[in-house]
Every structure is written in C-alpha cells, then in structure tokens.
C-alpha cells in the first residue's frame, strides 16, 4: 500500500505553466498625415497565439535604430514608467472598457481589438511623431530559486505627420551609391580590389543610402537604371518604397541584377523622387564587369601547363 501511494505521488503530473508566449499584431505599421485639431481612428488587432496572459498596452515614442528601418524605443517601458509617455495627449482608446494605458487579460486564441483614436491638438506644431503601440504579455510563470522572468512584447509602428495643408515638402540626398562587393572581392583577403570591378558570374547588387534632410518623413520612389558600354539600357531595378524618417538615413532595397554574362563598362543611375514631390535626385556611377573567376581558372591552368612543360624540358 505504501509503495503504491509513493508511486502515485511520483507519477502525478505537475501542472505545466505558460509554455508559450505568442502574440500577433495587425497592422504592423500605420502611416498618417493629420491636420491640427483633427482626429483619425485605427483598429489594431492583437491575437494571443500562446497561453493565457495579461496584456499591457501603451504608446512609446521611437526613433530610427539603424539605417535598415528598425526602431529604437525611446524609453523602454519599465514596470513603473511603462505607461507614462509624452503621447498621452494625442492617443486614446475608443473601446468602451479600455483606457490607455490598458491592462487586459487575453485568453489563449483570443483576439482583442484596440480602437486607437489619434487626435492632434489645435495648437500642435507641424512635425513628425513616431510611436510604437506596444503590447507586452505579462504571462504568469513560476520561478523557483534564482532565475529570470522573460516578457514578450510586440509593437506596431505609427508614423504620424502633423501638417496644416497636407502638402509635405521632403528633401533628400543620396549619401552612398555603389555596387555591393562581389563574393570574389570579399574572398581576396589582403588584396585591394576596387568596388568598381565586379565579376561576371555573380549577381550584381547595389548599395543605395538615402538621407532625409528635411523634418518630415518621405517615401522613396525611384529606380536604378543600368546601361552598358554602348549606352543601351539593360536593366531597370525599381526601388522598394520604404519610409525614410526625418533627419535620418536608410538603405534602399532593389532587386539584384542578374544579367547573362555581362562584360565591359557599365553605368548605373539611381533616380529617386520623394513621394508627393516633383524634385528628383539622382546619382551616376560607373563600374566594370569582367569574368574574374574564369580568368583566374585559366591563369592557374596555364601556369600548371607551363610548369609541367618546364619540368619536362629539364
């Protein structure tokens, strides 16, 4: 009887607590231009794909974290300061039962809509404001003895431009435009080979960095056009229409150029027209494409033949 009792105790399953934190947010990005005194409303839909949890919702300002479109939260929310942001005057929730900051239990599989109203005061100056609508899952877990409690957060970005007229006049300049280094160049350690010499057998990518020199965000619209030695257009590579925030830089993305055995001198022209403007900025570069890898193989082959013949003559 005692043995059976002990066996039952050992086999009794322990309750598994909070095995997964998983949140999904829609939309991940909201871009809006708004007049002072006006308001807009946007629904954000948060789904809990993990275990039952408690959601803390708040607005946190952010700034560009790098030149790739990633954000750096201005003030990482702590337990105390999470809900104290400078945005409180602009943002409110239209949900009847929720106010910002919001704390709401969310069961596994449940979706919660947050109806966010953005109202800009009459006196607000024309400016850009960037916020993250941050949702943190405070899932209850068990820590026995020493350990770390981990929290999962997800954020939707809000790009808010306050403008009296809606007519934005962003300005920009191209900070960097060059072909990306080919693999071959990267592999030739210790050798200095200019970026302007590319290999015929590698896809050709371009590095294009745009600096927003104005105080309003812009969306970069444009393309890279490539012409060959005979000035014939051989490729048009559209740029992805990414946002470049005020006074920041961003690398723009285009598809790689995959020509069939290019050789010779090429010219690439990057042309960008910030959205809703007519001002066009462009930059031109020249580069050479040669079959380095093939030449290298041929040189090695010839060297070996010469060496073999030389040895035979001896």
């Amino acid at each position, binding site marked *: 009887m005692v043995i059976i009792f002990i066996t039952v105790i050992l086999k009794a399953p322990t309750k598994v*607590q*909070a*095995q*997964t*934190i*998983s*949140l*999904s*947010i*829609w*939309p*991940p*990005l909201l871009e809006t231009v708004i007049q002072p005194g006006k308001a807009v409303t946007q629904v954000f839909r948060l789904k809990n*794909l*993990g*275990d039952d949890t408690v959601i803390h919702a708040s607005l946190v300002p952010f700034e*560009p*974290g*790098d030149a*790739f*479109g*990633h*954000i*750096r*939260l201005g003030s*990482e*929310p*702590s*337990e105390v300061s999470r809900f104290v942001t400078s945005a409180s005057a602009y943002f409110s929730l239209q949900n009847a039962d929720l106010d910002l900051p919001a704390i709401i239990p969310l069961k596994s599989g449940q979706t919660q809509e947050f109806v966010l109203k953005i109202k800009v005061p009459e006196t607000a100056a024309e400016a850009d404001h*960037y916020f*993250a609508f*941050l949702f*943190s899952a405070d*899932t*209850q*877990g*068990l*820590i*026995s*003895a*020493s*350990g*770390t*409690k*981990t*929290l*999962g*957060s*997800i*954020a*939707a*970005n809000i*790009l808010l431009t306050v403008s009296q007229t809606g007519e934005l006049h962003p300005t920009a300049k191209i900070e960097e435009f060059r072909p990306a280094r080919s693999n071959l160049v990267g592999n030739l350690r210790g050798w200095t080979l200019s970026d302007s010499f590319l290999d015929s057998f590698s896809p050709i990518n371009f590095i294009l960095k745009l600096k927003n020199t104005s105080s309003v965000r812009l969306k970069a619209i444009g393309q890279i056009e490539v012409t060959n030695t005979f000035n014939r257009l051989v490729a048009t590579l559209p740029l*992805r229409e*990414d*946002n470049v*925030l005020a006074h920041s830089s961003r690398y723009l*993305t285009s598809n790689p150029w995959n020509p069939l055995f290019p050789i010779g001198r090429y010219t690439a022209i990057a042309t960008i027209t910030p959205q809703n403007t007519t001002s066009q900025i462009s930059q031109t570069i020249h580069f050479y494409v040669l079959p380095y890898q093939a030449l290298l193989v041929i040189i090695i082959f010839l060297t070996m033949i010469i060496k073999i013949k030389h040895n035979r003559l001896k």
Partner: protein
Amino acid sequence: MKKFIASLTIASLLAFTFPHQLTSANLTAVADTLSTSRLSFYGSLGVGHTAGVSLIKISTTGMPSTSTANLFTGDTVLIGDAYTASTYTVDNIYDTDEFTITSGLGSGDNDSGDLVIATRSATHTVTFTPASSIANGAFRILIPSGTNGNSDGIPNHDGFDYSTSVGVGATAPTGGGVTSWESATATASGGTGCTAGNHCFEARYNGTNNASGTFTFYINRLINPAPATGHTAGSADTYTVTIQHLGDRLSNYAVIDSTTVKIAVVESVRVTATVDPTITFTLAAVGVGSTACGATADVSSTATAVPFGTMALNTFKNLAQKLTVSTNAVGGYSVTAIENDQLGKDGGTTTFIADASGDGAMTHETQDDWHTATQNGFGYSLQNADAAAIVFQYSDTSGGSCTTGTFCAKRFAATADAETAQSLFSSTTVADAEDVYSCYRLSVGATQAAGDYENNITYTATATF
C-alpha cells in the same frame, strides 16, 4: 392490261412526287472544349490621358468592352492606334473603368478613342462519334467568324478571329479505323472552299472509318470573341459550332452527317483577396538536455521563466529559450532585448549577481568569449537557426573580442543603467518562422550572498517602418 399500265404509271408518278428521304444522321457525343472561355477585350481609351500616365481609363460606351470586368493583373494589352500601338502589362485593376499599367503610356498611345485590346487565344478540342462509316471521306469543323475583319488578329464582337500572324492550325484525329489521315487544313472564313460566316477546318482520310469510338480534332489559336452587342457582364455569349462528316471525293465531299454544338465565352471571375500584413512573435521553452549555443541546457526553461535554481559555486549553468518571428510585412522585423536590472537578491537591487564580463571585455554592446567559470556573472549568447540576420552568435571567431568560436557572449542592456535595448536579430523582408535561440549562462562565486536572485528580460519584436 390498261388498268395495269395505268396503275404502274400512277405508282411511278407517286414515287417521283414523294421521293424516299435520305438517311442523314447526327454525330453523337459531340463537344467543343475551349482551353479558355474568356472573352477577349476590345475597348478604347477614355479622354484625358497624357503621355507617361499609368492609370488608364477606358471608354464606357461605343465599344464591345466597356468595363474592366474581363481584365486581369498581368494581362498584356495593346494600346494605341493602328500604326503606333504598343503593348503594356496590366499592373492592377483600379475600378470598373480604370486600371493601371506597369509603365507609362507612350506619347503616341494616349489619344482619346485609341484602341485597348487584350486577346484571348484558345485551343478548341472537338470530340465526336461518327454516325456512319464512309469510305475516303472527311470531317469538317465550322467555327463562327466575325462579319468584318475576321482574320486580322483583332477580336470581333460577333465571332472568332483567325489571326494569320499567330499560326492558327488544326490537327487531324488519329486512328478511327481508317487507313491513313491526311494533314488537316485550316481556312479562314471566305477563303478557298470556305464559305463566309465560318472558319473551316477539315481532315480527310483514306479507307473507311469506324462508326464508333471517339474522334478528337484540335484547332489551335483562334482568338475568342469580344463581348457581343448587348452583352451583360457575367452572362455568356454563345456560338454554334458545326461538325460535319463528308462523303468521298467522287461525291465532291458532300455532307453526309452533321451536328451542331453550342460553345460559350464569358468573362472570367476575378478573385481578389487582400492579405493583411501582420507580425507574430513567439517565445518558447527549451528542454533540459537540449543543445543550444554549443552548450547543453542544465534545466528546462519555460516561455516566461529561466529558472537557474540552486547554483554550484564557480560552475556554469546554461539554459535557453527559442524566439520565433513571422511577418508578411515587406520591410521585415527586428527583435531587441533589455533587462530591468542585474539579478537582484529576492528581486531587490542592493545585493545582486553582476552581469558578466566574459573573459574580460564583455559589455552589453561588445561580445567576448566566456570560457572561465570563475569569471562570474550573468550573460547570454545567440544561436541562429534560420533568421535573416543576427547581431552575433556563440560561434563567432571575430567581432568584438571573440576569437575562439565556443561561447561568444554579451551581457544584457539594463534599463536601470539607462542603456538602450540591443538588437538581437532582424530581417529586411518578409519572414516565415525565423528562429533564434537565446542562451543564458550564469556562474556565481564563493562570496555571493545566499538567496534567490531574480530579474526581468523583455524581448520586443517590431516591424520595420
């Protein structure tokens, strides 16, 4: 005798007056299957287009096609007048009378009334079973043609177009008991031996056909009609195809058997769906004994806790969690991490386990190897399963002060020290369940005061802007 002659005469007259009916029959199991039953598009430009625009507005009156109902993204359209028309690609359907093209409208193609044409060519697969066995005969298919300009490559509103430039052709049936088949012929409406009103396709054979079995006749690349006069979107326009079994050459290929069948052409249904961009972030446990960052997990983690438990002095204890991000936002995502403070005794701040310095140079921004357990503290490393980009990994042999590739690590940035959350991994494009292991390592020294030490780490996933 007179009576007999009179009777014979009457019988003969009656025989001539009421001749015996010919035994013509219908072919059976007849069908004409089109490879596409989409109507062709034949419209014209509305007013107000300038060279270079990509938003095209079509005229809503006076042409067979007066709405964008039968245009689709990716369609090739010919826009312009007869001399300068150029081909364009449909980028998107904007509304019922507007669509966008992928490039700007050419300077010669922007006049009001210029044609907008998208042809749909179809293969007709005509199948039938003959009703008769006929020696050295032929089969003929008649497909309705337009009244005017029915072989110019431009769709007609009242029949099929026989485009001479795209190589209309026919393929004769095979088998069927005949000795041999001659090459099938294709003749445009009004051509030699083909009466206007139908395009003619004929296959002659030698020998006698079986009056059973299925014969299949292929007709290639006829251009489907544009909407008929009075067409209602969604309602099919029907046309009658005739299949004939002909006698031999001596009978001048007279029609012996004949059957008609209806075919229908209609707008395709445009199915549209919008996939909303989302981002999903998941934190999951890693079990004891699992290997992550080149170290075996000493204790199971959960999604919410990294329970180191009771620590042995000057001994590493390793745990891990799995972080997963999915997003269909085109700009990608980024994941950052920050701790509230160092591991504090009973959650406090005064007595704490310091964040590690690795082998001497580790900070929250600079990674360093961490091999020596007597270098006490708390830190982390990363293992990239399939994320697009990661800031550093446990196996790095360069970057920061890492050289060995065994456990290259950092300490967490801390809110209490006014440090900024550090990026862990990211992508600049869509991501499908990209996984990274976050590996925690703790070592405590002999002078560490006894007690439970805790802190919080917050992982944040955000889409790019």
